[in-house]
């Protein structure tokens, strides 16, 4: 009982503190903007911990955050091996191949206005499809190791990236292109100096969508067969053998990898598209 009351009290206290920070004069300062969401997250974790302990929830159903942290610290070697297999080998390689292939395809397609008009609706449609379902087919084609995971990721990231790049390449207006024309710039120069930079916000939008898709693809593909390592493998066997705390530790790794990957792309975006209105102010 004391755990529940304590956790709820802590949560309420944190919320009250957040209200005070948010309504205070410093609410627009960077420390406040970081402190408020962090406090919110910590309060949620405390609530989870308190409820699990207070209600005596069995560890095979829902382990407490502290227990997950202990398991995490005790099995860093397993988690690292899985991280390398799934994220570095499967997701990252597939991401790079798929994104580069889509980018090159977009630039080639862009030369023909006819093909662009045909491809955009189809690409938009395919990008909305549940492409993850292709995972068992590709695992069958490319075997159990990381190659098949990378292949799933390639297919998943290709269309969102393609559509965004093609749209970005159409971003320049008549006036800007005419200016390049008066400079006697050729196709290649116009592409590199004007159209690609103008397309960057769209390209990065595609890249950010692709980061989350890449991890989803790599993990799902492992459910259909993998060597005896990898995050998807560990999660599916962990659920079967009731080592739920290890599964949660893998989920933490997946969450950290996903957030880190996304954060990295967003950071690069900030550097590249500093001139765009959405990055200013």
């Amino acid at each position, binding site marked *: 009982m004391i755990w529940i009351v304590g956790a709820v009290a802590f949560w309420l206290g944190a919320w009250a503190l957040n209200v005070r920070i948010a309504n205070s004069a410093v609410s627009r300062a960077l420390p406040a903007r970081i402190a*408020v969401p962090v*406090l919110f997250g910590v309060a949620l974790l405390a609530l989870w911990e308190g409820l699990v302990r207070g209600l005596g929830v069995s560890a095979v159903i829902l382990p407490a955050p502290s227990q997950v942290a202990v398991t995490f610290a005790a099995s860093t070697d397993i988690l690292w091996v899985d991280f390398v297999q799934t994220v570095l080998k499967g997701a990252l390689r597939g991401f790079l191949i798929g994104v580069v292939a889509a980018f090159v395809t977009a630039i080639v397609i862009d030369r023909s206005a006819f093909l662009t008009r*045909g491809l955009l609706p*189809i690409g938009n449609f395919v990008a909305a499809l549940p492409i993850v379902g292709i995972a068992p087919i590709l695992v069958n084609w490319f075997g159990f190791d990381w190659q098949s995971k990378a292949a799933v990721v390639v297919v998943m990231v290709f269309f969102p990236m393609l559509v965004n790049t093609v749209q970005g390449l159409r971003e320049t207006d008549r006036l800007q292109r005419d200016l390049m024309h008066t400079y006697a710039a050729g196709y290649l120069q116009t592409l590199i100096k004007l159209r690609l930079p103008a397309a960057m916000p769209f390209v990065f939008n595609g890249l950010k969508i692709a980061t989350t898709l890449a991890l989803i693809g790599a993990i799902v593909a492992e459910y259909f067969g993998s060597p005896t390592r990898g995050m998807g493998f560990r999660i*599916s066997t962990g659920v079967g053998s009731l080592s739920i705390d290890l599964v949660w530790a893998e989920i933490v790794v997946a*969450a950290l990898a996903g957030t880190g990957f996304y954060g990295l792309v967003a950071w690069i975006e900030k550097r590249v598209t500093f001139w765009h209105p959405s990055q200013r102010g």
Partner: protein
Amino acid sequence: MRNLLPVLTVLALILGIWWAAVGPMNMRAALDIAERGGAAVVPEGSVARREVSVWRLMAQNSDHVAAGYDLDRPRLPTPTQVGAELWKTTGAMVLRGRAFSKRSLINHGWITLQSTLWGFLLGTTLGILGAVAIVYSRVADMSLMPWAIISQTVPIVALAPMIIVLSNQLGIEGRGVPKAIISAYLCYFPVLVSMVKGLRSPTSSELDLLKTYNTGPVQSFFKLRLPASVPFLFTALKVGIAAALVGTIVGELPTGAISGLGARILIGDQFGTPLAIWSALFAAAILAGLLVTALDLIQRVTLKRMGFRA
């Protein structure tokens, strides 16, 4: 309509590439079957053939290439094979009056559709409520928004098995609820982001006008902010319903479900029937297309009635 010809051209291109790829993809399997049937094949034995490239096999055994286009269990089926399988498990079953038999994709599609719609409803509700909270409360804006973004970078598939275990332990029968939760998880985010944008879209002069009418916050919400956000809402709903379908299929894939389109893919994989996988994939694509088109129609009618310029 202007885009019809280009779209058809690109579709034909894709189908052409697909059809051309079937030959090389299925060559080895076709040769194995031909050899077992007593035909002369160069080189003999599937182990020896593994050393030879597909292109040489096709050149040396050119009369067996056609067999690759008509296998029972192809590595890559032809478009016509997939179409025939789709018809066999949907239209043909309707004609025999067994639209909802266990082998019918209509039955599985219906199960997937139900979870999708429940997840869509849940996700949309959460997204709208969250957006209202974020627009009206600075605390919610500061504490919820970063976590909403982070939640989407967490690969949901990692969580999916846990959601199913948890809901089983809580005594929830069947897979409908966990599947709906997973699809709501994927679907709430676009709605939340667009609704925040939409609810904030009225200009300050519009808000000022309402203030001169002496309207309270509730009235200005229903008379101004909510109507102004409707175009944003529909754009998000179209993204959201596609995301909800992805979520449902993800929920069905790795978890040993036995009904639903995702489960058909899983079962097709376990029993080595590629045609079942491909037809389920295309059924899912058709379902996605129908859902998005339906929302698009509703959007057009609603916006026209509300007086937005289409």
